[in-house]
């Protein structure tokens, strides 16, 4: 960590603040985020209402603070699930290197060719748009991207002597995969995890912005941006609060991942769902 840039530390700091807000925000948010007429409707930012009030007189700052958990936790769940499933599949494919590997890579290519946003919207229309479905669908798409990255990292490990030795020693495939290979691709998995978290925040915000996922009056940032869009010239602060919160979280995650992968000697693979 010695040769890290100041940017990395600033971004780490921003991330820590986001996590603290997500964990403790409900206890110290100045107003009830659902209470109408905490102030006058469309009140511009002031000492009483830092981010102003919205069309129903709700305090935008309290809504942004409350909203953090609706944004951060589902994103972490989706990326965590994708990281676990993706690295398990990736390692197995790299270790087995048989027809399963060929098939697996074809599946990856196929899924990466789907226009994921539209497909996710169709799936949400079929299964009903709730948080659990959203997490699972996003995790599904991200899993295959993780598979691709982890598999290629694991491929350079499986040819190492210690893996051969472990195999010759009679260790089971399971044990070789998770005791010999996994520790050596752990940094790749972790970088993938933080990177996917950023994209998950981005994607879930997008889904709420388009009117899927979160439903009013949830103080979800993407939804708040969409609600504020209609009255943007009358009350730009309604959009500004959640937009800056969302941007700072996604940018901080992106730059944090960048610094992290440089420290760990990895070149980050930026691949986004389309």
């Amino acid at each position, binding site marked *: 960590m010695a040769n890290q840039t100041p940017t990395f530390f600033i971004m780490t700091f921003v991330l820590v603040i986001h996590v603290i807000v997500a964990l403790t925000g409900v206890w110290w948010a100045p107003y009830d985020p659902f209470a109408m007429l905490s102030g006058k409707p469309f009140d511009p930012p002031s000492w009483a209402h830092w981010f102003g009030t919205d069309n129903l007189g709700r305090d935008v700052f309290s809504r942004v603070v409350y909203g953090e958990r609706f944004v951060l936790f589902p994103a972490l769940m989706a990326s965590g699930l994708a990281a676990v499933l993706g690295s398990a599949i990736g390692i197995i494919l790299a270790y087995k290197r048989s027809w399963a590997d060929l098939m697996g890579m074809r599946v990856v290519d196929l899924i990466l*060719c789907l226009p994921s946003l*539209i497909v996710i919207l169709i799936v949400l229309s*079929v299964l009903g748009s709730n948080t659990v479905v959203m997490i699972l669908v996003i995790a599904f798409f991200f899993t295959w991207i993780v598979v691709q990255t982890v598999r290629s990292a694991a491929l350079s490990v499986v040819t190492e002597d210690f893996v051969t030795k472990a195999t010759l020693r009679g260790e089971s495939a399971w044990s070789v995969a998770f005791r010999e290979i996994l520790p050596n691709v752990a940094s790749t998995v972790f970088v993938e995890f933080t990177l996917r978290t950023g994209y998950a925040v981005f994607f879930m915000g997008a889904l709420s912005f388009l009117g899927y996922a979160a439903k009013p009056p949830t103080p979800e940032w993407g939804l708040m*941006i969409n609600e504020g869009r209609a009255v943007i010239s009358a009350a730009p602060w309604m*959009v500004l609060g959640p937009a800056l919160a969302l*941007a700072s979280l996604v940018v901080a995650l992106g730059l944090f991942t960048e610094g992290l992968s440089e420290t760990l000697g990895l070149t980050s693979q930026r691949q986004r769902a389309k």
Partner: protein
Amino acid sequence: MRFALRLILPRIVLAALTLAAISVIIFTLVELLPGDAATRVLGRNATAENVEVWRKRFNLDRPPVTRYLLWARDFARGDWGVSLVSAQVASAGNPGGKTMRPVADLVLPRLKNTLILTLYVMAISIPASLFLGIVTAVFRERRFATWLSGLVLFGVSMPDYVIGVLMLLVFTVSLGWFPALALIDQATSVAEMVHMLTMPAVTLAIAVTGVSVRMMQGSLLQVLDSDYVRFATLKGLSKTRTLLVHALPNALGPAIRVTVLSLVWLIGGVVYVEVIFTFPGLGMLLLNSLKLLDTPVILAGTMLLSAFLILANLAADILAAVLNPKLRKQ
């Protein structure tokens, strides 16, 4: 020629197979949407006999596999069916007065608009990413290049819908330079169109440029560190000559590939941007059709997007193979 065929043919076959597989996935998903086409057209209080007529019309009396095959055949022939929403109007009351709208009539003008927007985005992003990629790679030791790289990274990380909303806030609400709506139609003149499309195009260009600059920079840095560039420098060639004659041509292959792939990035972003600026493109049409469950439109639009993605990937693959000097010599 034979070499080119051996290189390209398998990729085309693979792309066609991929499209076929994707069409199965998309068809299945759309079939799972609540309700079926006949009830969607007729609504709740339809007579059984009426429903039977429409079920026949949409092949709902046949098994799903047959339905898929019939749809795929018609789709490939260019017959994309009729919009259910227009059929709703036609079935209610006066069947003679209103005619049903073919899906192609709905989708193609929207596709044209989206393509216009895409071209505008590329007109901004290609020169910008070439310039930024070269500058940040060549002057990598200078402070301003570090700042530029940082800025680029910032652009990549920002969600496109946040960029769009912030642009709207600054350039429409505060400065009033550009209109909030990008509602173009046939009557819009070119000058008006440029004026209306500038904000959506710049929004998308920021996201796309960020990605391509980073890849461009990477490939140029690799070339600049290679032995032949070092040799050219040691031979005493000027910096400009080394860059233009020796380094750039070798970095161009990856750059073109990157440019084509950045089209793929556009597909996601274009939906949000169309919503933010109320642009009558394919993304908006798809969103609306999904809300109305107008399945033939959803199918056609999603298939077009997938075909576009696959074609972009195919083009990038073929270009990379053709432009790679090592492969060419074989």
